């Protein structure tokens, strides 16, 4: 028994979409715990901003970001066997270049717009993070779009309605939101 060309093409498309869905779910399961770790980093960092004097903020974030990067590297090793070594190296460079571009963008924006109070400096990273996750969601993995939208919305709600407690708002809702988003990804 043979099959038609269109049946064969449809079967090949099914194979490709199934393999793609498998890669996507695996990506979520690897990305979930990383997002949870960054949720904890956010919560601690913004709590530190709410509790410490502004001249200590830089050191706090430096230490917490270093912990976040170390956690990301450790948790990424779970996915080590999932991708070929070449692709892994390429992805590592892309991730590092992407993170550098985002940091440079935030620094450049502060340099140009020079916020005169601390509130814009507190809320802006939340908006940028939301944008980055939304971009990843549109381009590769749809669940990140919802996480990005939630982080951006939470940052704006804090800006408009909870300015006196903005740092704690960002710790609870931003950090908590990333943590819950990570749980959602992990269960995919």
């Amino acid at each position, binding site marked *: 028994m043979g099959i*038609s*060309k269109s049946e064969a093409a449809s079967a090949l498309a099914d194979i490709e979409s*199934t393999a793609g869905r*498998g890669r996507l779910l695996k990506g979520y399961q690897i990305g979930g715990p990383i997002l949870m770790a960054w949720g904890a980093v956010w919560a601690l960092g913004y709590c530190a901003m709410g509790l410490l004097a502004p001249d200590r903020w830089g050191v706090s974030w430096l230490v917490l970001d270093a912990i976040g990067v170390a956690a990301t590297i450790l948790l990424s090793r779970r996915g080590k066997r999932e991708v070929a070594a070449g692709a892994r190296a390429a992805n590592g460079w892309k991730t590092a270049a992407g993170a550098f571009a985002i940091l440079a963008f935030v620094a450049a924006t502060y340099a140009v717009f020079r916020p005169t109070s601390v509130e814009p400096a507190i809320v802006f990273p939340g908006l940028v993070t939301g944008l980055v996750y939304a971009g990843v969601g549109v381009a590769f993995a749809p669940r990140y779009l919802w996480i990005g939208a939630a982080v951006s919305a939470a940052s704006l709600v804090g800006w408009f309605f909870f300015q006196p407690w903005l740092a704690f708002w960002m710790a609870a809702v931003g950090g908590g939101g990333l943590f819950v988003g990570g749980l959602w990804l992990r269960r995919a």
Partner: protein
Amino acid sequence: MAQLDELIHQPLRLKIMAALHAERDAEPVEFSRLKAVTQATDGNLGSHLTTLEKAGYVEIAKDFVGKKPRTRVALTPVGRKAFRRHVDYLRAVVEGVDGD
């Protein structure tokens, strides 16, 4: 020339084989994840896995993680070979080597 494998060609079995084939080093896949990837129901997935296991295309291992039962499925070397042959056949048909 590659040939149609009617056992694999059934739509859900094709998805199961594709999902397992996509695993590097033939790593076993948990039943729950296979269910999510293939978008099948428990009963349907279980019955097609039994068919594939009887054909020697997949291996099913059951164990416990703590008190929780776990079922994992992996492609056998025979299954991997059969799937590749089936994909070669599909490509040949699409490229006009065979079929209508």
